Structures are given as structure tokens and as C-alpha cells.
């Protein structure tokens, strides 16, 4: 059943158009940034947009920040809102249910398909923006970050072997590191300057990449560290979308209009966004689905700040449980006439 839903998802041109549009926004922003080199003033605009001018390997994080507030939730609401209501309005739902299929299982399969969609969308955004970022802004060494990914994910198949084709280092700043209270301005931080060494040595390439990206707290990030934090942030963004997906999926079982379900979910999100920013509503903000959306940036602090991330995970889990239960309560006893 899950397979059927996934095939259905993959066969829809709309799925790919949505993902393409999601990837387009960060690309457009990157082109403007790269041609003008005008970044938003510090502390304003989307996160990481000024930092990417130094190293494009941070651009996936900036891209997530760009699509997270509106584009991604809209895409999720469209797909999830259509999940049941779409079948209903096309008249395919009753044929679907004529098969010996449990309605609960159908709901579960729909949810899995939506999660796969979100995962695919986030991975595509991160992947394209990494390529775009590195090619437009350069990176300390893009290959080092890519090679570090297997170290993080546990699959070490790609680490050994061939020489990396190290990209030109775009930043010229001296290597960062610990700075004493009194002796900081004397030198460039004491790390060996790897710029002159050949790009063939993976170790040197890694060190070079290390000297180009920093956490929000000023700690230099190794490629493995950066890759791990990016993966963490991407995972968190995927989970953050589950609440929207659950709201839209529940509404999708209530109405036969997928547009209605999508708009209903978006209305819930906008309400949540408004209330989150309202001090007077502080008593309910911990329960709002968008409350901890921005916590993914805490992966880039040093030490990683887990408080809001953990709260966000529990919150999304709560929304999924309650709304999927509601969808189940509504859908399993619903008269399907269309």
C-alpha cells in the first residue's frame, strides 16, 4: 500500500514541479547575491545569508532558512491536503476502498508518502543549493565536505582513495581558533597555512575547508562537523513539517475539496505564526505548531543548543499523534459516496 502511494506520488508531475520551484528560490537568491555581493546587514534578513559570501558550503543552511517560513509549508499543505480529498473529488476513493484495504492503513500510507515527499524536497533543496552555493561563492574545499558525509552517516565507503579536486579557496582570512584574552592580534591563529600546499593531499584540503566556515559562536567547523550539523538541521526541518502535514491530512479527510484542506492548513499556520510573535499570547505559544520552527539554527551554535530542538520534536510528535487519531476517528466511519 505504501508502495502504491509512493508510485502515485512519483508519477504526479505536480510533485516534481513543486520540488523544482522549491529549489528555484534559493538559486535565484544565490544568483543575485553572487552578482551584486550585497548581503543583508548583520542580524537582519534570513540566517547565514552574509556568511555564504565567504563559503558556499553553508548555502544549504541559508537555503533552508529561505524556504522554511512559507514555501516549504505551502508545498506540504498542497500535497497533504490533496491526499484523501483529491481521491475523493476525483471519484477514485471509493474504488480504492473497494479493495480489501483497511482505512487506517490507507491513512498511514498517505502519511508515509507525505514524509517521503518532504524528505525529498528538503534533500533536493539542500543538494541543489550546495552545488549552487559552492559554484557561485566557492568553498574552502567542497570535496572535503562531501567526503566527510560518509564519516557522519556511518558509511565509510567514500572516504578512502582518490585525490580530491580541491576548489579554489575563496576566503583569504587567517585560520580561526582559540583566541587568548591578550595575545590574539599577534598572529593568524597558529594553524598551518595550507593555501600553498597542493590540493592533492586530502588532509591539507580538509584543513583548508576547516578554515572557511564557523559556527554562530565563532568555532571553526571541520567538514565532518559541518556536514553533521547540516544533516541534523535538515532532519529537524523535515520533522517540523510533520505538524503541517498532519493538519492538512486531517482536513483532507473532512472535506472533499483538496483546496479547502490546503487552505485550512495554511490558515492554521498563519494563525500560529501571528500568535507566536504576540507577547500577549505567551501562555499558548509553547503549543503552537510553528513555535520551534526556527530552532534548526541551534544546530549551528557551540555547544549545540538542544533545548528548543527537543521541544520542537515533541511538539511535532504531539500534533501528528492527535491529528492522525482525529483523521482516523473521522475517516474510518465516514460515508464515502464519491
Amino acid at each position, binding site marked *: 500500500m505504501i508502495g502504491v502511494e509512493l508510485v502515485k506520488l512519483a508519477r504526479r508531475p505536480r510533485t516534481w514541479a513543486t520540488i523544482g520551484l522549491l529549489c528555484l528560490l534559493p538559486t535565484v537568491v544565490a544568483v543575485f547575491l553572487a552578482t551584486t555581493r550585497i548581503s543583508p546587514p548583520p542580524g537582519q534578513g534570513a540566517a547565514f545569508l552574509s556568511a555564504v559570501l565567504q563559503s558556499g558550503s553553508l548555502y544549504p543552511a541559508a537555503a533552508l532558512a529561505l524556504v522554511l517560513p512559507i514555501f516549504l509549508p505551502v508545498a506540504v499543505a498542497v500535497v497533504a491536503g490533496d491526499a484523501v480529498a483529491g481521491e475523493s473529488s476525483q471519484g477514485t476513493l471509493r474504488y480504492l476502498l473497494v479493495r480489501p484495504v483497511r482505512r487506517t492503513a490507507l491513512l498511514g500510507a498517505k502519511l508515509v508518502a507525505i514524509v517521503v515527499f518532504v524528505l525529498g524536497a528538503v534533500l533536493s533543496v539542500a543538494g541543489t543549493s550546495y552545488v549552487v552555493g559552492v559554484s557561485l561563492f566557492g568553498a574552502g574545499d567542497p570535496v572535503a565536505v562531501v567526503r566527510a558525509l560518509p564519516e557522519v552517516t556511518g558509511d565509510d565507503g567514500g572516504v578512502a582513495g582518490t585525490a580530491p579536486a580541491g576548489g579554489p579557496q575563496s576566503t583569504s582570512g587567517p585560520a*580561526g581558533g582559540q*583566541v587568548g*584574552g591578550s595575545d590574539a592580534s599577534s598572529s593568524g591563529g597558529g594553524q598551518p597555512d595550507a593555501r600553498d600546499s597542493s590540493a592533492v593531499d586530502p588532509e591539507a584540503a580538509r584543513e583548508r575547508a576547516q*578554515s572557511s566556515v564557523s559556527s554562530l*559562536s565563532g568555532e571553526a567547523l571541520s567538514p565532518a562537523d559541518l556536514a553533521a550539523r547540516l544533516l541534523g538541521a535538515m532532519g529537524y526541518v523535515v520533522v517540523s513539517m510533520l505538524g503541517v502535514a498532519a493538519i492538512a491530512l486531517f482536513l483532507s479527510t473532512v472535506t472533499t475539496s483538496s483546496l479547502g484542506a490546503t487552505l485550512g492548513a495554511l490558515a492554521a499556520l498563519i494563525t500560529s505564526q501571528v500568535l507566536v510573535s504576540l507577547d500577549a499570547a505567551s501562555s499558548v505559544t509553547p503549543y503552537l505548531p510553528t513555535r520551534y520552527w526556527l530552532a534548526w539554527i541551534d544546530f549551528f551554535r557551540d555547544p549545540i543548543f538542544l533545548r528548543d530542538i527537543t521541544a520542537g520534536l515533541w511538539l511535532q510528535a504531539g500534533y501528528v499523534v492527535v491529528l492522525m487519531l482525529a483523521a482516523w476517528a473521522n475517516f474510518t466511519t465516514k460515508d464515502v459516496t464519491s
Partner: protein
Amino acid sequence: MTVGAGTTGGRALRWAVVVLVGALLVGVPAAIAARPGSAQADPDELRDRIAASADVPWTGYAEARAGLALPRIPALSDVTTLFSGVTRLRGWYAAPDRARTDVLTPVGERDRYTTPRGQAVWDYGAELLTLVAADPVVRLPRPDDLLPPALARRLLAGTAASDPATALPSRRVAGVDAAGVRVTVADPETTVGALDVWADPATGLPVAVEVRARGVADPLISTAFGELEQGPPDPAALEPRRGPGAGVTRSPTSDLFGVLGRGDGASLPDRIAGRDREPPEEDFPALGQYGTTLGQLVAVPLPADLAATLLGGIDRAGAGRTLPVEGQGAALETPLLTLAVVRSNDGGRAWVLAGLVPDAAIDAGAADLLAGGAA
């Protein structure tokens, strides 16, 4: 077509399950958070223990809420935003000269490291590490002052020993069963009405603070830990770091009062608004501290251009009160903190005057500054 047992009873039962699970998910965490504390401590003893808690190390996260609603004034925006809204703080505290405070924003952070050799400020947005030689003791408020331990100790130090301490109901804050004490401030020369502090009765570490102004029902500043671990912090977190490619700069002081206070203090009288001037700190001869209690006034001479900027800023914000003095004076007033800029009629002399004091003290102080500086 109906699939499954679509009876009304089954449907009601299903929805009952939904409502029950929803209520549990909302209610259980709320009930755990709201469960009353049981800690008890003698209020006077607790107050002494809080005052002596500077050597208690901790690591934690705190949120401070301030409702002073100051308008945004150029050159003072750090202070005005600090007192109008929520400040999110992460802290590592090993000793008074070994600490770090991060101010978290949605797109970055600003970290202040205190080391035995001085302070270092890391600004992610500006990609700059500033090494600060020294800040004066008397200075403009900054975010790390809003951490519960810092705020409690600083403000309690300004109360009189005769101010009565009463017990407050205990509260659970960040996993600590904290005992509460209210110190009611008797001094009519300050706007601070009472300080409510909740602290760990075992160590005396303040975990929540509420500052109340005279005649205002709700606390104007409230700060509390959301996460707290007592014990020495990770030493690695206390080392200042400079991001790759970021700049480093040195500054004698990071505080506006500190910068101004390094100038010439000749225009500061010995006594204003009935308060005697304290001996000036070394390196900051132009920093005028009048009094040592909560009702103290701070006066600093201003250069003409900055005075014009500040007066213009207060004027544009439309929230200032014009002072009844011989000269120009405008005050930004809140029920707690007042910040005034005073300038002589010829524009030659100007001061900034601040304190947790009522209007009358500001007016008298401004008049004394104009009169005394001329003599």
C-alpha cells in the same frame, strides 16, 4: 457505502479517544510544569545566601522579559531593546572572572566572555571579536545583567539591610525546587518597589527574579532559568573563539558610559539631588556615580554631537518628557528606569543622567548638573 462499524456509538468512542489523548498531551506537561514546590527557607537567611552565591558555578539557559516599552533611540538601541521584549540567554559560569553569556537571536548570537585578563565579545553578525580591557562597575545595563544570578545579586546589593524580607511561595524553576524571598524596598528615592527572588535553598543560586516598580501590579522585569545545571561548566566553552576570516579588534571598554567616562569629569558637581558623588573608578574619571543604593544616579558628560543625536532621537520618538530646567532636557521615562539628556542653553555642556529614580530626583539632578557644572 459504509465500511467498518459505522455506528454512532463507535464514532463517539473514537472521538472520545482523540479528545482524551489530546487533553493528556496538553495537560500532563502543563501539570508537571505547574506542580508547586515544597522548598522552604528563612527569608533573611536566604537573602544572605543569595548575596554570597557568586562562587556557585552553573551552566544554563534563561529567558528575560522586560516590559519597560522604551522607544528605540539611536546610540542607545542596545539598552532600549534590552528593556522592551524577551532576551534569550545561554550562560556558563565558573567564577566571577570566568564566565560566558550568549545572547541568542533567530539569525545569530552575540557572546561575551569574561576571562581573568579581560573580556572578549564575539559578534557573529559583524564577524568580529572585540577584546575589551575593562568595563566600569557603573555602566549601562547589558544582556548578561538579566541572568537571574547576576540581576538578583546586583539589585540586592543596592537594598538596605533594614528593608524587610518576607517569604514567597516556592516555585519549581528549571528542575530546582526554589524557595522565594521578597525584599520590599523602603527607600522613597527609588522606583524599585520590591525584588522577588527564588533561589536554590541549598546553594543560594538565584533561579528566578522579578523586579516590581512602586505602584505597578505586574513585575516589569522577570527572568528565570529554563534549563540549569549546577556545577563547574565545560572549560572549553569558556575560551573565546574567533571565526575563520573574522576580524579582531581591541577596545578599552565596551560600554557607552565607559567610553564617555574616560573623558574629563570637571563638569560633574560633588553632589546632585541630595546624593554625594562616590570616588570615581580608576580609568573612568568622568563617570559620576551618586549614591550606592538602588536610588543612585549616574551622570556622565556628553560630547556636543552625541548630546544632539540623543536629544533628537528622544524628540523623534515622541516619548520624552521635557525637563523643567534652565537649559534643554529630555527624559525617557518608564515606571522603573529613567534616562535623561541635559544640555546647557549655549550647548557647551551636556550630560546623560540615569537611575532607577522618580521624576523629582531626575529634575533635581538635572538642575544641579546645570548649576554645578557652571560654577
